[in-house]
């Protein structure tokens, strides 16, 4: 049973894509939960299944091509796993919404951005056009778009990347949903604009007390934002931890590697700590622990058996036979 203050609870989510060559197991039984007002990050490299996870939570994965199975998918006390598409349409946008990675492809290029935000209000609150316009302009102003009345009439191509991302954020927060998924919201942006957009996102989340699931490949983005972090590798959660201890004392060798791979301004050395090898192909995952070919602590045990996700106290879980202890870091 999920606890009462869980906004989202996902139990044992599995997504596979069968094709002629075999089966791609994109997500292999992951559990997630997000509390009310909490910002949770799902971190992993490309191909690890993080976007598939987010789309499955929204029930936006087409079946076929995918086969999805989930034991529990509860949003704000409502079980969503058996809802029809029509019922989901009412939930999407009003209770749960999503900020996509690439704002240019997420927005309709032949419609003004204002009209696109209007749609949310008209659809979910049955507002009149003029009323919706007023709300849309307010929504644009809230995310810090300068002169929102003029921008309301702009088409997506007339806006810069940062502004487009703000429009998406405005749209996602339009109905004040209780849960928002942000899928790599800043990857396509410049560093200075990235900082701006993240600030807007954090501000909006705090003001509305929204639960946020932030999906990213970049641990440095979540260091200052997330309360809790899930690290994903090859379709499995390998580590779950509150943010601060994860950065101070990573338990899984993969997390340690990811942290080491990020260059720091405070670094003095002239070499980068690297994880050897590459992410395995999703159709040819290795036996045993998926990370063992790249892991420098791997033993025989790791080669034949997948370690379970073990609770190690303080809200931390790790999927490793040999979790790192504090002094062990190189």
């Amino acid at each position: 049973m999920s606890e009462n203050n869980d906004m989202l609870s996902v139990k044992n989510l599995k997504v596979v894509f069968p094709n002629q060559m075999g089966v791609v197991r994109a997500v292999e039984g992951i559990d997630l939960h997000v509390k009310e007002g909490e910002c949770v990050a799902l971190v992993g490299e490309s191909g690890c299944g993080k976007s598939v996870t987010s789309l499955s939570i929204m029930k936006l994965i087409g079946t076929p091509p995918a086969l999805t199975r989930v034991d529990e998918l509860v949003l704000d006390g409502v079980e969503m796993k058996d809802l029809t598409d029509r019922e989901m349409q009412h939930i999407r946008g009003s209770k749960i919404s999503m900020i996509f990675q690439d704002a240019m492809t997420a927005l309709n290029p032949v419609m003004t951005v204002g009209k696109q935000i209007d749609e949310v209000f008209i659809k979910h609150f049955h507002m009149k056009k003029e009323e919706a316009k007023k709300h849309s302009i307010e929504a644009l102003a809230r995310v810090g778009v300068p002169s929102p009345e003029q921008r309301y009439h702009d088409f997506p191509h007339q806006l810069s990347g940062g502004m487009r991302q703000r429009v998406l954020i405005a749209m996602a927060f339009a109905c004040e949903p209780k849960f928002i998924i942000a899928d790599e919201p800043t990857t396509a942006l410049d560093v200075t604009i990235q900082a701006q957009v993240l600030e807007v996102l954090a501000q909006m989340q705090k003001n509305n007390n929204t639960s946020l699931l932030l999906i990213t490949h970049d641990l440095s983005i979540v260091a200052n934002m997330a309360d809790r972090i899930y690290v994903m590798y090859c379709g499995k959660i390998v580590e779950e931890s509150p943010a601060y201890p994860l950065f101070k004392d990573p338990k899984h060798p993969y997390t340690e590697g990811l942290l080491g791979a990020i260059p720091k301004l405070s670094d003095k050395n002239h070499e980068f700590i690297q994880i050897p090898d590459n992410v395995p192909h999703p159709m040819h995952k290795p036996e045993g622990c998926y990370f063992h070919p790249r892991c420098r602590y791997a033993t025989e045990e790791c080669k034949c058996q997948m370690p379970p996700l073990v609770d190690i106290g303080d809200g931390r879980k790790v999927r490793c036979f040999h979790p790192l202890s504090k002094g062990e870091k190189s």
Partner: protein
Amino acid sequence: MSQEISTEKKPLVEIQDLDVFFPVKGGLSFKKHYVQAVSDMSLQIFEGETLGLVGESGCGKTTLANTVLGMIEPTKGKVFFKGNDLYALKGKEFKALRRDMQMIFQDPFSSLNPRFDILEIIGEPMRIRGGFTDEEIEKRVVELLKMVGLSESDLHRHPSDFSGGQRQRIGIARAIILNPDFLVCDEPVSALDVSVHAQILNLLLKLQKEIGMTYLFISHNLAVVKTVCDRVAVMYLGKMMEYGQTDKIFENTLHPYTKALLDAVLDVDVDNKKERHVLKGEIPSPIDPPPGCRFCKRCSRATDICSQVTPKLKEIEPGHYVACHLYDEK
């Protein structure tokens, strides 16, 4: 050593008062408009060093690199490579000089021909140059594959069989097959997975040590630049803002734009959270920029003079230049 910039040392590449303007078509007025992609840039790259070129997208980094490689004719100014005026040379001489400069591209997914196998891709520069037998080419390609961390068995595979990191290694092998003296790395890791970043950067550092190449390293990530580069040039809207040795720039940051870029770098250092000043606004259009400092509209310390007079590049301490009115009196 590149730490000491002495006057006797000969620069490998020298750029003098370089302007690269692109005419803009259309518009109602009869006045011709120009995108000032690079304006009044001068810099030197010494043998064996790595010069970092930093700035937001659209600031002219790639245009500058292309001009240095002889791919875009400059509007004004000169580019010297090994003491020869690149754009004064024609035909054979130009080609011979170009052979010693190569480039690594940002996106390894679009920079390799999908229909070629690895032998053809990496061996192509040798074939174009001519005078080598097929056996010689194959021998050299195998040698290079080992150098960049791939194996001989990969010789007849196609780019689609490789992951992003491996493709970037192929791109690097192709770039260094003719033993160039000068290599332009245009954001070599930004399209790759985080865990592979360190591998590629370490490979570049290793190759530089082994072959003794000179790098022009383009990046927007200051943390990477700090580790890789000997000297750094910070660009904004086609102009040089700050220029000097890496340690001087990072320890004694002078220009407000460089400071803002440093603030925008997200860190995984959770212990000493720095106070961040998020830069307001976005990079303005480079079409006919107004007089004065190009950064003045976003600068928190801008005064009246900034919008009227273009600041000149001044040497504040030996080997550390800045273009900012704040340092006028000193």
